[in-house]
């Protein structure tokens, strides 16, 4: 790439992917999995992690073929002018949709748990402003912020681990109650909380490491996230019985609320603001990806010009759905969009790139 943008280091990449991946989903996956996989929820998460790893491998195969190019440039290269631009537009839409979805769930949770009286649009606005300031910057700036905020994982993990004092192993058993088929089927519910790793499609050329090392680092992040989820899910399953979990849509928060830290009565109120930072990182990643796409589409060098538009669109999308049904619909559409954009299309591109390469060789 002609642009002389600074690259991020391998360590920053590790934390970048983690921050992008861990989102609002983890708060509710124990609840969702309790419905389907019962005691086997931990296994489900592990399987989801493995599937994610396969997709990451696929991405890597694709990106390695085109050194120095990001997803959008690959789209152009493979799809040609018209079709490539359509693809880019599709991806931009996808990133905006996912960003909006995360923001909406995040604000929903915040309102339910601590800010009952604050109007939704204020919270959405604050989130938008925060993400705007980050996403308009260069990747290195974002990476630095992500690294800094990764320190916040420590209190989060401590909060959740403290719940283990109330754990009772018997609540999780029998592990295979739901049957292996249901445990496999439940991976569908967890995939959405794994999303975020697709930012590598955009930032891959901007990492200062060899291709192999990049793959290794990304896999490490995925491993970390998977294990973190397994830990959270198992803790929740051991603290709550499954009849109780059925009533609690955000078990992680309920767990933190029920802890007694002597001085602090409601630790969830401490937990949520810390958590919000992680959510901001997730949304920022999507907003950044969408802005980079727009810059590519309009052949501009800097993506920062487009970030305000992206954030404005995200803000207005999140304002629209007011009923739980509408929110659910957005959730479902994000899920299906993800199947298309992170599985089917990249897969098609990998196949396409094989053909493409042959063509290049032949003409050469």
């Amino acid at each position, binding site marked *: 790439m002609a642009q002389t943008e600074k690259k991020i280091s391998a360590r920053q990449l590790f934390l970048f992917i983690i921050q992008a991946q861990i989102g609002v989903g983890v708060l509710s996956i124990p609840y969702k999995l309790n419905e389907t996989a019962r005691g086997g929820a931990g296994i489900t998460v592990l399987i989801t992690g493995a599937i994610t790893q396969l997709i990451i491998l696929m991405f890597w195969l694709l990106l390695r073929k085109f050194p120095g190019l990001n997803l959008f440039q690959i789209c152009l290269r493979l799809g040609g002018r018209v079709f490539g631009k359509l693809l880019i537009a599709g991806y931009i839409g996808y990133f905006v949709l996912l960003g909006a979805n995360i923001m909406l769930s995040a604000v929903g949770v915040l309102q*339910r*748990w*601590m*800010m*009952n*009286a*604050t*109007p939704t649009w*204020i919270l959405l606005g*604050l989130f938008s402003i925060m993400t705007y300031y980050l996403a308009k910057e260069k990747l290195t700036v974002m990476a630095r912020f992500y690294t800094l905020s990764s320190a916040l994982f420590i209190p989060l993990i401590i909060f959740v681990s403290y719940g283990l004092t109330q754990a*009772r*192993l*018997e*609540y*999780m*058993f*029998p592990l295979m*109650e739901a049957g292996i088929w249901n445990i496999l089927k439940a991976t569908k519910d967890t995939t959405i909380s794994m999303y975020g790793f697709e930012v590598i499609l955009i930032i891959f050329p901007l990492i200062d490491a060899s291709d192999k090392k990049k793959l290794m680092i990304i896999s490490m992040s995925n491993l970390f996230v998977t294990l973190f989820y397994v830990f959270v899910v198992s803790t929740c399953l051991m603290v*709550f*019985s499954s*009849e*109780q979990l059925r*009533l609690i849509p955000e078990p992680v928060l309920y767990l933190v*609320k*029920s*802890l*007694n830290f002597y001085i602090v*009565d*409601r630790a*969830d109120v401490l937990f949520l603001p810390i958590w919000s930072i992680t959510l901001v990182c997730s949304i920022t990643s999507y907003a950044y990806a969408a802005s980079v796409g727009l810059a590519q589409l309009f052949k501009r060098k800097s993506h920062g010009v487009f970030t305000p538009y992206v954030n404005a669109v995200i803000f207005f999308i999140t304002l629209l759905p007011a009923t739980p049904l509408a929110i659910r619909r957005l959730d479902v559409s994000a899920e299906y969009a993800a199947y298309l954009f992170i599985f089917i299309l990249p897969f098609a591109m990998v196949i396409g790139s094989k053909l493409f390469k042959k063509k290049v060789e032949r003409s050469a």
Partner: protein
Amino acid sequence: MKRSVAVLGAVLSTAMLAGCWDREYLKDLNLAYSVGFDLTKDKKIKETVELIIPPESEQSGTKNEIHSAVGPTTRGSSNELRARVRGNMRVLKNGVQVIGKDLALNGLKPPMDVNFRDPDNPSSNVRLIITDGEASEIIGQKEVGELKIGEFLVQKIESLEKMSLFYPPETMDKVFKALKDPGQDFALPYIGLEGKEIVAKGVALFHDQYFTGELNTEDSIMLVLLKGRSGDNARLTKKIDDGPLRGNISFNVGKKKVKRTFKVMVGKNGEVHVQLNIKLKGLIEEYTGSHPLTEESIVRVNQELSDILTRQARDVVRSLQKANCDIFGVGRELIAYHNSLWKQKDWSKEYPEVQFHTNVQVSIINTGIIQ
């Protein structure tokens, strides 16, 4: 110019962004320290609260007020109450909820729902207490000695927890857990009014959400020990009558850890056996007999006390089964390890038929500074 815009921006944002909608000033709130719930004759909920009124001048102490109201549900009667008290009543600092016997007999799930549903209601450190009469009478005491009723109840329960009458503490969250768990029941502190005094009567046993039985104070301590737990102290007094060793012995088994074996086994025909053994280490605190407690006599004392406590433990287990209170979580063990059997069972019917094999072993490790 640019600078003034920045300054203006900073001032505006501190003025507009720092404020939030979800704020409450302590001075505007009426904090309810203790709350009581009763069932009225026409099946409504009567709520009684103790409100803490902040002092008017700095020197004087806080005062409390008692109010009550009737409504169709817990929150309903709270709303009714809000119409009666000045300002906004909040339960943020609530430490104890007293529940009248009639309400407990009628089931705890409906009246407790709001406590679990509203995140503003504290639940991690709120004690639930059952009273044998009306909760409004207990709260209506207003003050006990120098203490306000809410403080008194909390302190009383906490000190009794240290004395192993109720242990581990049954907080709102634990009750929520047990209410929703088909394989686990719970017990709550049981108090009553004797004249003007508030007296601990033992524990109230629950099956599912219903109050089904009670244990007296000595048996409550035994129950705690059978759970394998103990507070700081667990004092028992028993009369022994074994040859020359005749007299009353008071001993404390709470100083050392209780060793417990708890095994749930399933027989050939699907009958459930529970092996429940505890080993206690006791310190003698009082002995009224004349025969000195030499090494040989301690062996006999151990034997005698083990027999007495085993008998008591079996009585306790019998009362638990009679009340259908699966407090040890036998059902939970079955769910986890014998799931297919659990699914065939109607646990509320079959729990009383579980065969418990209970044994208590006591060994005295200390006789104080005299023999």
